[in-house]
């Protein structure tokens, strides 16, 4: 395996981690705000806050890891994406900033404050939308070179059905992933009302998810023929992913084994995410930037990989401890030991 492949695989795995933990987090923020505004606070807020409180910062680090890592492994991305993403990137930062701080304001000081909850609930939905635009840009067609500088065509991006379907998919995925996870988590706590409500949300968002996912592949066939054909070559990954999706929905429908349902969901997204990533290979930004012409020097690549392995050796036990103390500690999840 070449260093380039190792580098992009590491980054893609972390990005996948962010997609999952970020979706749970953003969706939970939305459901929390929705429950406060619709008067169902008594059912949901406690569960959501007990899960969210100790982990929100960790979620953010997954994202930071990705963008620092990609500049480390593929420095040329700083030039191409840095220049073109100024506006969407800044909007994402502003939303992240509002969400992070208003989350803290609400949790640590003014529990149940409607304005704060609304701010972080709404910004949580807009963040995946603004970040996912990058995926649309990476398909090519929105960036042109002017005087050797990449320039983003905002109008084309705004009018493109592809970018809108990616945005819609990101939002439905956030709500679906989060609802399935919280169904399981609520069930763990033994809270039947919350479980039933989250189960309803999970089933509600399952259908739009699969429609938008198919929509993107359809749009892509017009937008980037080459990528579309590579996706067709990997049809088995997407087919398997679909089967796992059916499995999740079936389990939730039948009220069986929510833990397994969430496991299948992770598998479903893993296959789809990697199917997409592999078919995107070797381009980082079609057609200007591939993982080969943007890669860092060998010395840096090797030292980054060494640091990565050492870092993981430190992080995995810590993450295990965090999960053990908060997600799987029966007393904690049932609220008997909460602060």
């Amino acid at each position, binding site marked *: 395996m070449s260093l380039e492949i190792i580098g992009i695989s590491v980054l893609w795995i972390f990005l996948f981690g962010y997609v999952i933990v970020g979706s749970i987090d953003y969706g939970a923020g939305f459901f929390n705000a929705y429950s406060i505004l619709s008067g169902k606070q008594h059912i949901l807020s406690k569960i959501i806050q007990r899960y969210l409180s100790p982990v929100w910062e960790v979620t953010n680090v997954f994202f930071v890891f990705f963008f*620092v890592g990609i500049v480390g492994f593929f420095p040329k991305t700083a030039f191409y994406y840095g*220049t073109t993403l100024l506006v969407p990137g800044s909007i994402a930062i502003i939303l992240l900033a509002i969400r992070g701080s208003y989350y803290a304001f609400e949790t640590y000081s003014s529990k149940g404050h409607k304005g704060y909850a609304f701010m972080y609930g709404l910004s949580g939905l807009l963040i995946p939308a603004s970040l996912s635009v990058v995926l649309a840009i990476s398909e090519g067609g929105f960036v042109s070179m002017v005087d050797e500088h990449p320039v983003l065509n905002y109008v084309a991006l705004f009018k493109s059905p592809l970018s809108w379907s990616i945005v819609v998919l990101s939002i439905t995925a956030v709500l679906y992933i989060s609802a399935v996870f919280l169904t399981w988590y609520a069930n763990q706590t033994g809270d039947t009302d919350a479980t039933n409500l989250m189960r309803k949300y999970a089933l509600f968002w399952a259908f739009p998810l699969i429609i938008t996912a198919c929509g993107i592949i359809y749009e892509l066939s017009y937008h980037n023929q080459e990528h579309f054909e590579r996706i067709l070559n990997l049809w088995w990954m997407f087919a398997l992913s679909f089967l796992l999706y059916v499995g999740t929905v079936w389990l939730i429908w039948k009220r069986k084994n929510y833990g397994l349902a969430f496991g299948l969901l992770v598998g479903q997204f893993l296959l789809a995410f990697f199917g997409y990533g592999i078919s995107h290979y070797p381009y980082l930004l079609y057609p200007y930037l591939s993982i080969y012409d943007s890669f860092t020097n060998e010395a840096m690549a090797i030292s980054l990989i060494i640091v*990565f392995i050492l*870092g993981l050796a430190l992080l995995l036990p810590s993450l295990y401890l965090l999960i053990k103390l908060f997600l799987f500690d029966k007393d904690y999840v049932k609220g008997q030991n909460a602060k």
Partner: protein
Amino acid sequence: MLFEDPVFSSRMLTILTLSFHAIYATIGVGVPLMIMIAQWVGIKKNDEHYLLMARRWARGYVITVAVGVVTGTAIGLQLSLLWPNFMELAGNVIALPLFMEVFAFFFEAIFLGIYMYTWERFKNQRKHLLFLIPVSLGAAFSAFFITIVNSFMNAPQGFDIVNGELINVNPLGAIFNPAMPTKVAHVVATAFMTAAFTLSSIAAFQLLKGSNHVYHKKALFLTMKIGLIFSIATAVIGDFSGKYLAEYQPEKLAAAEWHFETEGNAPLVMFGILDDEQNIKYALKFPYLLSILAHGDPNAEVIGLDQFSNFESPPLYIHYFFDIMVAIGVFMILLALIYWIGVKRGWAFINQKWFRMLIVLGGPLSFIAIEAGWWLTEFGRQPWILRGIMTTGEAATSSGHVGLMLILFAILYLILGIGTIVILRRLFKNNPVERELENRLGGEQS
């Protein structure tokens, strides 16, 4: 200018983000150590006051951490968004400490979550205190790694550029650059100093407002003592920084000191103004002091700005940043020293209103010193973003929308700043020390 020139507006936006982030980052690096010391003293002396101190500081701390995390994310992304050409080059050479910083931060985030939600979980308080150690370490190492990147910008090494090609990259060589030891030590020490003086400023404020509770007196004494230690450490490290500058970045030192002619027996110039012929007026001059600062020898020759072209000379206004930083540093050492001796000797005036007002002032002053220090080092590196290799103008984005982003971010920081103040005030006002102590002690007896 804001909307036509991406270089100018990129600089303004970076100053804005860094200056705002510096406040929260300083608290983020400094306060965990204070919480740790308070909790440790509380366990050792079995004193509920110190334990409550740790609790209350931690509660305020998480609010500032949240804003620090998001502004840190902002500057992390803005580096690529505003300085894409610089990051492309830097990514090749100095990506390693940036990457390590993420891990340190990861580590800190995980254990802060654990620490905050396990106050009541362990019978043995020492076990709970253990979780704070990785938080402090993670915070200090974040500062350590990120400051390495800044020191690399001042003293780049660990690579060669031949015919425009980057070769012989040595990531460790880039990390261990000559600016690194003094800069890293200075940043970490001032964070501890500022955190300590901020907490003593709060304690003194409570005493001024009429509370005579021993809780605040204990907090004041503890934090002033810690502040004294780290302010002295800061001064010592600052002296080494002067020697580093004299050797590796003489133009920065010369501009900061308004030292125009290369000469020996150089005096240290504080404040004053320059007239049109670059004559210094109304300044305080300390004879020989610049030679001592630069080389540890009153007669040593110090390189002046005459050795540099206009292009290479940093802006002369950095002189004032240096003066503000040093004046505040010296003031804080004296204030803490007088207070400490005063407590030992039983001097009455340290408990008087005017002296406590000075201590209250010490918190904001320390932050001004931090900001002045960062402005000194950043403006003092101009015109370079990577000294001797890439200018700030070459590094900036070509995008025409930076001006608009600057306005958006200014509004954002205003909202976050006001939000922090409102929330922190509410957090502590609604739950004063006296009441919380009563509740806790009452709870223990029943």
